[in-house]
């Protein structure tokens, strides 16, 4: 099942599950230098009421998630990594940044891929329904290569650079009515009624 919310609530087990999985992945496993809240949660300065959370879950809870940040407010590319963009950082009411794509390691490679595709499909549907035409993001080079070869209108914003010991690249994706068909052509997009609910855990 997919749930889309604005802001979070730490009495909601789905939200706490998401922040715990984010800590396990980004801090425990990938060793990113991020703050830990309450000893358990990875919550940063961009989490809050202006962030949109796309979460996929089953009966047991959080299976994967991503966060969309408005580009008109402080966001990761605009605030922290503007040096990655040789061109102006895309900003505007129709532009959001994709951040914190969290695919828990416990799902295994095939499970993570399935969750990734479900989240991308839900993100595209959400973007189309809310007039979001441009998505940006900052990722590792290999993941950017994958994103740019998914079949949609996507381009790098500049070369890969090493900032604070992390090698990163920025990208831009254009979302149009054709995007679902383009992603379906590479086996990534699944229309929402056909999207399986439970994730492989």
């Amino acid at each position: 099942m997919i749930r889309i919310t604005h802001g979070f609530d730490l009495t909601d087990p789905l939200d706490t599950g998401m922040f715990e999985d984010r800590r396990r992945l980004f801090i425990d496993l990938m060793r990113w230098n991020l703050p830990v809240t309450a000893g358990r949660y990875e919550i940063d300065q961009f989490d809050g009421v202006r962030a949109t959370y796309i979460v996929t879950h089953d009966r047991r809870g959080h299976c994967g998630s991503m966060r969309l940040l408005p580009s008109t407010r402080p966001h990761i590319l605009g605030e922290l990594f503007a040096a990655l963009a040789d061109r102006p950082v895309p900003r505007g009411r129709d532009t959001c940044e994709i951040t914190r794509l969290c695919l828990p390691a416990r799902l295994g490679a095939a499970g993570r891929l399935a969750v990734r595709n479900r989240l991308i499909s839900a993100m595209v549907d959400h973007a189309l329904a809310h007039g979001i035409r441009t998505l940006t993001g900052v990722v590792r080079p290999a993941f950017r290569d994958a994103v740019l070869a998914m079949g949609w209108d996507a381009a790098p914003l500049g070369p890969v650079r090493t900032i604070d010991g992390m090698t990163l690249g920025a990208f831009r994706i254009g979302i149009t009515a054709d995007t679902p068909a383009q992603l379906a052509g590479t086996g990534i997009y699944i229309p929402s009624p056909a999207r399986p609910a439970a994730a492989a855990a």
Partner: protein
Amino acid sequence: MIRVPRLFIEFYDLARAADDCEALMRLLVDVALDLGFDRVAMLHTAALIRRHPWLIRFDNYPFGWDRRLVVRGYRVIDPVLMAVRRRESGLLWPDGLPGAQFGDLQKTILEEGKRCGIRQGFTVPANVPGEPEGSISFATRSTRRIGWERLMLADAIGRTAFDQMRRIMGLGIGPDAAASITERERECIYWIAHGKSNQDVADLLGIDVETVRTYLKRVFLKLGRLNTRSQLVYEAMRLGLIDALPSVSSERGT
């Protein structure tokens, strides 16, 4: 110990020694008869649409069969060829055909085949990257069940025959244009095939845009007779330099 049937060994030796197309085809017709198939066709599918010295097309099917029935304009409509282009192993037909997907036209073709004495058969795909799609079909008027041993032999013999026909016709012996392309040049082509600009490619590979232009100039020279990026991508697909795989990543993301 596994024994390779004599029928295959004899055909293999004779086919490798054959030095003209007709001689090879006679060998194939004879061995097909030994296997219980009275009809055999070895062809590049495109040869059904147009004749060309580089396209293989030999068969002893009933005269005019192909003209009337397997092609409409530039589209191959034969149900067997349609099904076999989507697989790697031989297909026993009509039993193995995905009948549910066929329209009236395909059903008519199968019915007409029966009337011409082509009641059942076995078709082996023969596809070499950079060369047109091909196949070898063995067919019979008999309706008796064709056993596994005959199918296996037909499979091996069909592939051997196709390769020997390619040898005789001089296919696949020219210099391999793909081998001259370096990994960096291939990466440039890959990203162009994904619709990226030279500046995008430069960013992705971490090199200067002038270097991308230099790589591409070199690629155009190496592959020859190409004028546009679309032609370049087509040629790269044809040569197997890039494939049609959707991107799949094992990375966890941001």
